[in-house]
């Protein structure tokens, strides 16, 4: 199949037909890649909901060069040959992204100091980069009670941004399950039908896909801040999954086990609940070596490289340097 050409923020790449704008941007590098809060590379039909990845298509294609009338969700829009896209080079896109960030935060409790996700939370990264320091929303936030989804997973709906990723995990792991969100609009909530339906050895992956601290690991709850732990790639011979995981150690103790996330914070290979929740002894694992921590995440503490620094002039910085 012949490759097609797409230009994002003045950088051109050739990709296979069917590639989305977001995927093409990721191939170019972080300097041109829009943030994605709901798309997940390994979950089918994910994306389109959060609207943080909106970009401007300034030229539709070689055949039909008209610009698209509205901003489009880059995660769900396939590229066309000759398409030109503006991400960080468009003031409109930056402006709308700020607004979407604000929308995602108006009902968020911002309880990072007591949230296990802090440090590796995508909403934290997003708001650090693009949020305002003050909220214009001065009303009561919506609140829900915490729910235990089985003995290992905690659901804190207050923090949820309704990205539908956990719903897709549940959907794609158990074919019978259809409902994951109850009620509508402002009152939507992730339903505990998941609890009944994902009685499945892979349900723990919901924790990994959750971009915020809405779904957390009960076996790791309040044990430590993630940045005090040292992540190591490790594997074990597991009959259920590939057994490739990351173990998070403090001294010689394993505090938690997660899947291996790629550069974009997305897990390529699911791990089973046995590996995740029950194998917390060093003798369970064969260590491969320490994992690199990505600098544009809040987890890297004082070494944090603020996203807007590298997006300020994406042309000036070659994509490679940012990896």
């Amino acid at each position: 199949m012949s490759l097609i050409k797409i230009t994002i923020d003045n950088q051109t790449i050739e990709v296979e037909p069917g590639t989305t704008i977001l995927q093409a941007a990721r191939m170019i590098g972080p300097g041109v890649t829009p943030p994605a809060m709901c798309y997940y590379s390994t979950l089918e039909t994910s994306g389109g909901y959060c609207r943080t990845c909106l970009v401007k298509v300034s030229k539709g294609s070689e055949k039909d060069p008209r610009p698209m009338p509205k901003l489009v969700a880059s995660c769900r829009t396939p590229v066309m040959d000759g398409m030109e896209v503006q991400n960080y080079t468009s003031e409109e896109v930056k402006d709308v992204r700020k607004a979407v960030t604000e929308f995602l935060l108006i009902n968020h409790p911002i309880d990072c100091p007591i949230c296990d996700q802090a440090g590796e939370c995508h909403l934290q990264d997003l708001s650090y980069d693009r949020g305002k320091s003050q909220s214009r929303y001065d009303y009561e936030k919506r609140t829900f009670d915490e729910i235990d989804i089985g003995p290992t997973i905690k659901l804190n709906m207050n923090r949820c941004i309704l990205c539908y990723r956990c719903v897709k995990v549940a959907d794609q792991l158990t074919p019978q399950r259809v409902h994951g969100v109850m009620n509508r609009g402002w009152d939507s909530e992730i339903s505990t039908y998941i609890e009944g339906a994902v009685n499945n050895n892979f349900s723990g992956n919901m924790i990994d896909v959750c971009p915020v601290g809405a779904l957390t690991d009960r076996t790791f709850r309040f044990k430590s801040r993630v940045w005090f732990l040292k992540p190591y790639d490790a594997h074990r011979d597991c009959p259920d999954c590939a057994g490739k995981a990351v173990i998070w150690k403090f001294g010689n103790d394993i505090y938690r086990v997660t899947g291996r996330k790629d550069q974009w914070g997305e897990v390529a290979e699911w791990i089973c609940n046995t590996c995740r929740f029950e194998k917390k002894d060093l003798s369970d694992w064969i260590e491969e070596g320490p994992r690199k921590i990505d600098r544009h995440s809040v987890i890297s503490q004082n070494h944090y490289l603020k996203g807007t620094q590298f997006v300020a002039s994406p042309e000036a910085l070659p994509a490679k340097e940012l990896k």
Partner: protein
Amino acid sequence: MSRKLLLAKDHVPGIRSYDVYRANGGYASVEKALKTMSPEAVTEEVKKSGLRGRGGAGFPTGMKWSFLAKPEGVPRYLVCNADESEPGTFKDRYLMERIPHLLVEGMITSSFALGANTSFIYIRGEYFYVSRILEQAIAEAYANGWLGKNILGSGYDLDLYVQVGAGAYICGEETALLESLEGKRGNPRIKPPFPAVEGLYRCPTVVNNVETIAAVVPIVNDGGEAYAAIGIGRSTGTKLISASGNINKPGVYEIELGLPVEEFLFSDEYCGGIANGKRLKACVPGGSSVPILPEYLVCKTATGDDRLMTYESLSDGGFATGSMLGSGGFIVYDENQCVVRNTWNFSRFYRHESCGQCSPCREGTGWMETVLRRLEKGMGNLDDIDLLVGVAKKIEGNTICPLGDAAAWPVAAAIRHFRHEFEYHVLHAEKVKDPKHGHKEPIMPVKPAPVVA
């Protein structure tokens, strides 16, 4: 007296029943189409008629039909959108309740044109009793050989089903409707793919409004050109208008497109003027989703031309000084009504009806409602007004489906034309604690002074 095509036989006693309907020329379009025309020829007539979708967007129906993908060996579907949930719109109910066979007839003729062998009428849950009427009509049509196998010996088969929704406005959005029809949660789909390519059960599907499908009957009977001869420019044919609010004669009227708004509003044939001898304050001409117009822009456009009941004239001036024909929900407000309260009321609706998939709509509709509630109760401040404008602007155009726009437009338009009334709610907090404050001290729109060049 203007021409009526859909409601021409409305006054005939018993027109709801098959026998009376048939005796009054019913099902002639099916006979004509199946016996003397090819499906393409029917589509051609619809194209010629210039008929535009009556569900709100006004997309040319003939063009929509010709976009329908026709891959071999894959069924195609026609789905009638009878979800009618837009506040201020109640024309489809009237039509289905009074002349159900007209819709059934339109469904058969249209399905034939599209090559659909299974078709559905998706009707909102609150219209349960109407669904019974439709089912009765469908049973009569089966009994008389208009539905089922080999209709009129033409070799064409069609099954028609009624599906009752669970009462959600969002299920009127065509892709949410299809999800709901498939038995799933009614969340709009992310487009593309469009229903014409991948619709119901991932097969090519056309979704049309009740009135659109009913209009196919006179188009096939009299020819597309005869239909196109009615109306002005690209607004052809007749349109059902649901008139409500402070008028003498609320109800459903069939008008020829191109009728002046002034005549519609004040003549005794239609609305009969403002009730109780009051003054006109404002009008929402196309259902709750379209911008509100202040009194001085209702009968005249900003340039001083007569405003007509057409797609073009009602949107003359863009959103700055115009509105939209939308679904034809014509809501009239007299001098005593409070625009802030009305805007809050609409925003409550959108907050409740947002499906919640995308963040700008889910959070934004709720946010706007909260701010508007505060303003309505006299507890807001002046900054809130600009905040509302800002939030509305950030919802608009950034969502999956047009519900976000539909929620943002009325708020933006109300502030555009009635800012002084929002300010009044801040400055006279004591007065507005009484929801009927407009009866004591009417607030009329202020026409901006003309710009002198």
